């Protein structure tokens, strides 16, 4: 129910056992290794060397991992394997995994084939693109009846090319009247006239001079031979040929879908090798022995060292980390609280000095989320929806935690929906004409009441945050700090509240409030400057600390969002209902209602859900964590492959 206690350890063993030890550590996955810095190795452990530099091997592995992950994607795409909404890994038994990977040469062959086929497809595609652009070049010439590669015969010269349509073609033709030559149009488009010209050798100069006067630009066709019509046909044939090659390759790739699991396992195997290679990097060693050190959860220590001791000749020392010693953080909470860890992790990992805030935060998150969404029907949809997704897709990691969190928060949403009478907004009163079905009260009719309650919830939330701070101080033995820095603020804030609102209960309450306020103010002035040496500085700091009251005020006001967002959900839902009911009770009206109701409420649920998540998180981060949280810890990172596609059975 908190931050897991960690043991630190150091262990000496023989180099021969190194590989087997790392294999064992990876299998257990509960030991984090802490590397040695270069200065430590040279200064503190003079005779030790860092583990041999394995960077080349690591680079190769990472290269291969990239290839494997590309291959998986290629086969997935070719076989059009559908991706589920939430990805979950395939469960594989250790035996199957080991058996499959005892012989990777076959898998490597598949990998090579897949990537080669993909490369060929790429090459074919670019060839097709080139053919397509050639095709475009020939299309205007398709009516030309002679071989475009012939530019001269024994007695004549021939040219094909274009002139602008703006040039006067008749004038051009008139220029060569009477000479032994022709200029004819093959085709015209918006900007160009496609022409050919032929002339007897004797008159060639005259004809070509006339052409160049008209800014004739000759077209060349590279290596192509034959009439444009024939060339177009052959290009088409070549294209079809290449398309069918691509189709064939794609089918071949799709056929690899049968081996996709093999490829995925190979991918994960590479991840494992990389994790181990990174672990080797943390070893220090002499010629025949090595030294490692690191952390592991205290509960697991006995078992882990027993297992290691059974198999290897090692010497080790282990002891629990001290309270003020930096160590990696592992959180352990019960089923109800652990889904909310994602909220904290998004903000920051707790540091070793923190207490795990999740258990205190969870009830408030639950309460506030429900207040902001506050619609019973939405809550039911949210809980059931996330539950179905969880059961159907078995997601892992953050998405699993988030869904569980929404599933739990849905319950709170239903509760507040019933209290405030929100079922798809005001659909029940709107259809039946009942005044209100709120069990407690309708916040749209009495927003001030909910506003005051929001402030009340906020003050409790803030007090809880301050309470955690006090707990942290007391745990360190700083009793006086807890009383001065937190107890006095409790006194002052409660005093002010009683002073302001106490008169409705009784004059005595108000009077007590006054005394408490005065005591709080005086106490703060006297104690808040206690770190200063000079007396006037003590006093100045004490008085200045009262300025913090502004901070507390603005924190409390920030909780007004509980009311505002709750109202937003309800009112927008009502807007949807009002729009839906505009059609009246006719058949058309019913259809309109159904459409508007479904679309409108799905939209409102989505937007309100996002708002509720974001703004509840904000209240935790700024108003709650701001009171005590240090953060900046490092998550426990044991030697363990982060397998992407497979989950190994224990």
């Amino acid at each position, binding site marked *: 129910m908190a931050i897991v206690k960690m043991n630190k350890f150091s262990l000496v063993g023989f180099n021969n056992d190194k590989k087997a030890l790392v294999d064992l550590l990876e299998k257990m996955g509960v030991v984090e290794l802490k590397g040695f810095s270069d200065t430590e190795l040279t200064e503190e452990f003079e005779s030790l060397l860092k583990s041999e530099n394995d960077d080349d091997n690591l680079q190769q592995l990472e290269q291969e991992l990239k290839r494997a992950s590309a291959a998986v994607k290629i086969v997935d795409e070719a076989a059009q394997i559908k991706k589920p909404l939430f990805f979950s890994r395939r469960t594989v038994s250790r035996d199957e995994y080991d058996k499959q990977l005892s012989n990777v040469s076959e898998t490597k062959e598949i990998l090579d084939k897949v990537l080669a086929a993909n490369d060929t497809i790429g090459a074919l595609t670019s060839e097709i693109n080139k053919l397509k652009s050639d095709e475009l070049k020939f299309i205007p010439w398709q009516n030309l009846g002679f071989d475009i590669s012939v530019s001269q015969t024994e007695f004549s010269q021939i040219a094909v090319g274009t002139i602008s349509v703006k040039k006067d073609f008749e004038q051009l033709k008139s220029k060569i009247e009477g000479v032994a030559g022709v200029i004819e149009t093959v085709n015209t488009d918006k900007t160009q006239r496609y022409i050919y010209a032929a002339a007897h050798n004797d008159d060639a100069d005259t004809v070509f001079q006339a052409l160049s006067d008209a800014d004739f630009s000759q077209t060349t066709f590279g290596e192509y031979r034959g009439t444009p019509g024939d060339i177009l046909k052959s290009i088409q044939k070549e294209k079809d040929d290449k398309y069918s090659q691509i189709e064939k390759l794609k089918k071949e790739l799709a056929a690899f879908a049968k081996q996709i699991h093999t490829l995925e396992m190979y991918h994960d195997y590479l991840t494992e090798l990389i994790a181990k290679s990174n672990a080797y990097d943390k070893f220090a060693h002499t010629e025949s022995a090595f030294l490692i050190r690191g952390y592991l959860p205290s509960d697991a220590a006995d078992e882990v060292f027993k297992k290691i001791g059974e198999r290897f000749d090692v010497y080790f020392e282990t002891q629990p980390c001290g309270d003020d010693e930096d160590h990696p953080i592992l959180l352990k909470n019960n089923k109800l609280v652990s889904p909310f860890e994602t909220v904290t992790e998004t903000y920051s990992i707790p540091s070793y000095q923190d207490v795990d805030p999740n258990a205190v935060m969870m009830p408030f998150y639950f309460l506030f989320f429900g207040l902001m969404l506050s619609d019973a029907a939405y809550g039911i949809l949210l809980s059931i929806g996330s539950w179905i997704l969880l059961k159907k897709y078995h997601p892992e990691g953050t998405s699993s935690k988030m869904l569980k969190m929404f599933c739990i928060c849905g319950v709170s949403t239903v509760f507040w929906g019933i209290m405030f009478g929100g079922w798809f907004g005001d659909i029940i009163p709107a259809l039946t004409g009942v005044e209100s079905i709120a069990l407690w009260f309708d916040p749209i009719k009495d927003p001030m009441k909910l*506003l005051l309650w929001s402030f009340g919830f906020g003050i409790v939330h803030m007090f809880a945050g301050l309470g955690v701070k006090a707990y942290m101080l007391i745990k360190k033995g700083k009793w006086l700090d807890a009383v001065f820095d937190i107890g006095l603020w409790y006194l002052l804030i409660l005093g002010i509240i009683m002073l302001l609102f106490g008169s409705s209960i009784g004059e005595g309450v108000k009077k007590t409030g006054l005394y408490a306020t005065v005591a709080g103010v005086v106490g703060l002035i006297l104690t808040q400057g206690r770190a200063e040496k000079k007396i006037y500085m003590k006093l100045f700091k004490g008085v200045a600390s009262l300025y913090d009251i502004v901070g507390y005020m603005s924190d409390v006001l920030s909780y007004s969002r509980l009311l*505002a967002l709750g109202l937003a959900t309800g009112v927008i839902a009502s807007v949807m209902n009002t729009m839906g009911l505009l059609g009246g009770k006719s058949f058309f009206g019913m259809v309109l209602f159904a459409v508007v109701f479904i679309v409108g409420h799905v939209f409102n649920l989505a937007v309100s859900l*996002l708002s509720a998540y*974001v703004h509840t998180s904000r209240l935790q981060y700024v108003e709650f964590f701001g009171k005590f949280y240090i953060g900046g810890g490092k998550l426990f990172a044991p030697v363990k492959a982060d397998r992407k596609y497979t989950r190994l059975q224990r």
Partner: protein
Amino acid sequence: MWYEAIFNGAFLAILGAGLAVGMSGIGSAKGVGIVGQAAAGLISEEPERFGQALILQLLPGTQGLYGLLVGFLMLNKIGVLSGHIAHLTTMQGFMFLACALPIAIVGYASAIAQGKVAANGIGIIAKKPAELTKGILFSAMVETYAVLALLASILIMNGIAVA
């Protein structure tokens, strides 16, 4: 006379509702537009980030909803929705107009500011998709002020008595 119409209470109140919906709507349209442009750039390279980008684009859209909310409550209060428009004095009309101003003004400005933050959040999901929530939270910090303005508008409206 035309100036009598301008000082008509019901007209002023409806003008207020229009401003609440219109101004915050313009702001949201601009904000959503800014994020949309940035998102479209990302999607051309990484189409699979569509869902994440859409969430960010949605964020500056809430101001428009808050404006609609205030407008709706106001129209409901003066009876436009039920068809029996209450008789409002010029003073009451001006009060309704004033009550629309917080969400109209703050909604307009904050939606644009929020859009800019969310557009930069698109950069976060381009480089580190896992950090999407942080981008969302930065953007939500801006929205706080729209929420406060919404609250002010609602509380003012709640305080205006209509016979």
